């Protein structure tokens, strides 16, 4: 039997161990990180098989909740944790490309970023969620500035300011809930949320929603996103799109469904999602810098997920979760490819990258990733968008669906433009090295696999209806 707490304890153990190993050999620290993330991905996979029947509760310290902390893992949490750790493992191979010192500290920060994101998904305690949010965001701040250039510092500084405000809001929300209910366990809160004063309840919900919205890249709290993605080292940009962002949006889902038990249409959430989609997609269309374009596109995709959660029908939430998985894989792939293209073109402008992706080792995965993000069948991204659309359609929200489709068309337009440029006949083609193309190919295989054979994912997503009604 796999205990969920191992997914947090092992990375912590390896992170604390790595400075000691670093004294002896820096190279081995890098391999240790790959090993740790691989171990975590395996454990998360086994955990996923286990929680299929019923949710697993892991009581920490032997104190029954709500006295102590409990980890609460249902099928949905397990699959998001699995995807986070799988992508983290794949990116950790790409991490071998990072040359800048101090590499031991970089590796530790990366591993703790993975640990924090996993913890945010697994925990069943509201304050524990806040602690893991802090772990994730503080690791992100230092990694965002790791290049130590002007761009990196600018992005990281913005992130620190907005992130701290977000954390403060989360803490305020927790304070309000605790002072009324005197408990921090999510299911305990859910059971007694009705006894809260309605005004306090709304303020608490809004605080938590805005606080986790920072990590989930929600409008208007996402001004840090383009600067951070642009200034961070390439593997970290890839990791940001798939680890903390997904953990943040899952925390948002926990707040909406598990704790506050909203089941009907949430105007507030849908409008925020729509604004996020439009903000992201329209600005992405105007970008000339590749990483910034991907960052804005990431905002747009996160907005679609938020919309899916807000529409709140089983189908739409299934779509939101599918989109989370597809986006984690697709964006990680595109950012790794972007890292290669920037290295090959020695410039971050899209127009300088003519024909740089003509090497099949980069080109084919890049094409698969872009098509998946655009939502083309038979790739992973198709089902997510399709389910969100159908979820809205079946409930008759035609205006929202029309806006959603319009944003998708903008998305197709700028990705098509980007693809056209990088596959044009241009100057010489550069061959990528193994640390670049192995992660690309692994991610591409996963995207195709999930797109062509979605049955296992759909089987997990069947549990969405239980999740919406307040289950684990």
């Amino acid at each position, binding site marked *: 039997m796999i*205990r969920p*707490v191992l997914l947090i*304890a092992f990375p*912590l*153990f390896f*992170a*604390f*161990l*790595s*400075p*000691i190993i670093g*004294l002896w050999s820096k190279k081995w620290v890098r391999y240790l990180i790959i090993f740790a993330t691989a171990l975590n991905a395996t454990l998360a996979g086994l955990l996923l098989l286990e929680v299929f029947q019923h949710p697993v*509760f*892991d*009581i*920490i*310290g*032997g*104190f*029954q*909740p*709500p*006295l*102590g*902390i409990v980890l609460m893992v249902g099928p949905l949490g397990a699959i998001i944790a699995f995807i986070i750790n799988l992508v983290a493992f794949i990116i950790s191979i790409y991490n071998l490309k990072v040359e800048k*010192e*101090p590499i031991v*500290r970089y590796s530790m*920060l990366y591993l*703790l970023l993975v*640990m*924090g994101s996993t*913890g945010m998904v697994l925990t069943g305690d509201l304050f*524990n969620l806040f*602690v*893991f949010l*802090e*772990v994730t965001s*503080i*690791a992100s*701040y*230092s990694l965002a500035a*790791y290049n*130590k250039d002007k761009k990196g510092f600018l992005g990281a500084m913005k992130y620190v300011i907005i992130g701290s405000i977000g954390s403060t809001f989360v803490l305020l929300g927790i304070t*309000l809930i605790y*002072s*009324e*209910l*005197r*408990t921090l*366990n999510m*299911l*305990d809160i859910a059971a*007694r949320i009705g*006894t809260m*004063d309605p*005004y*306090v309840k709304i*303020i*608490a919900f809004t605080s938590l929603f805005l606080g986790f919205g920072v990590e989930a890249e929600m409008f208007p709290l996402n001004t840090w996103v383009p600067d951070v993605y642009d200034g961070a080292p390439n593997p970290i940009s890839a990791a940001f799109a798939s680890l903390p962002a997904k953990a943040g949006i899952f925390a948002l889902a926990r707040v909406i469904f598990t704790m506050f038990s909203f089941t009907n249409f949430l105007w507030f959430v849908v409008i925020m999602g729509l604004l996020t989609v439009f903000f992201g997609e329209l600005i992405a269309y105007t970008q000339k810098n590749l990483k910034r374009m991907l960052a804005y596109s990431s905002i747009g995709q996160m907005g679609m997920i938020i919309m899916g959660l807000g529409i709140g029908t089983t189908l739409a939430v299934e779509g939101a979760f599918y989109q989370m998985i597809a986006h984690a894989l697709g964006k990680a792939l595109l950012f790794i490819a972007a890292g290669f293209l920037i290295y090959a073109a020695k410039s971050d402008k899209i127009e300088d990258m003519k024909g740089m992706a003509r090497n099949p080792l980069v080109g084919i995965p890049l094409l698969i990733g872009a098509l998946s993000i655009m939502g083309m069948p038979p790739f992973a991204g198709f089902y997510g968008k399709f389910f969100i659309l159908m979820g809205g359609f079946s409930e008759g929200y035609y205006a929202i669906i029309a806006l959603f489709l319009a944003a998708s068309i903008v998305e197709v337009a700028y990705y098509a433009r980007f693809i056209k440029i990088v596959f044009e006949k241009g100057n010489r083609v550069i061959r990528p090295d193994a640390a670049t193309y192995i992660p690309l190919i692994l991610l591409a295989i996963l995207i195709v696999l999930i797109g062509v054979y979605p049955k296992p994912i759909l089987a997990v997503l069947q549990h969405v209806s239980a999740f919406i009604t307040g289950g684990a």
Partner: protein
Amino acid sequence: MKRVLALTLAILLFIVFAMAFAKIPFGEKMSNYPDYYNPIENQTSNMSLPQHYLTYGKNDTGATNMVTAVVVDYRGFDTLGEVTVLFLASTGVGSLMYVEDKVKRKVRRSNAVVETGSKLLFGFIILFGAYIFIHGHLTPGGGFPGGAVIASSFLLLYLAYPKFHAEHKKLNVSESLAGLTFVIVGLLGLIIAGYFLYNFLPFGLPTYLFSAGVIPVIYVAIGVKVGSELTGIVDAMMGVRE
């Protein structure tokens, strides 16, 4: 315009939150608190969470200091997270302050009073810090304040001797070993009793030094860890001096 907008937003936020906090009674009788509900066993208790901590805390954890009982035992997992946050902060500062070709900064000697005074005080401050975290389960204090006191003794040395340099490798090793101790204690609990961070050592007699099971062990680890981390942050911020 920008300022007016910012001010309006601040006032609006203040009003919204003040109205929410106005609906919450402060310092009310603990018996008025709502009873807690155990979602796993599916049963409602007959007392509230704070009442349970105060009534059964000594029996459950063996600690006399109830704050410590909650911080290290009931919610020890959060503390492990907080320790990680500090570890991250120190690692982050270390990685951002790292420079390949070090520019040495010229510094002046401090005066004789500070130098002699710091020599005298250094040992006592360390002793006091160690006292605070070793007695964390008995008296007010614990690993975090104890570690901060220890770091302040090093800060004194930095002020008195401008060329003083704590050895980075040693700091890193003590930091890591302390962190590993915490995680290993947790994993031992998992192996011995089936719960991560389970208090598996005998509780002993409350109010005595050797009591409360693993709490003193964890607090000593936290004290060492916080002390070396804060010293490391001070050291990284000081840069290289000549």
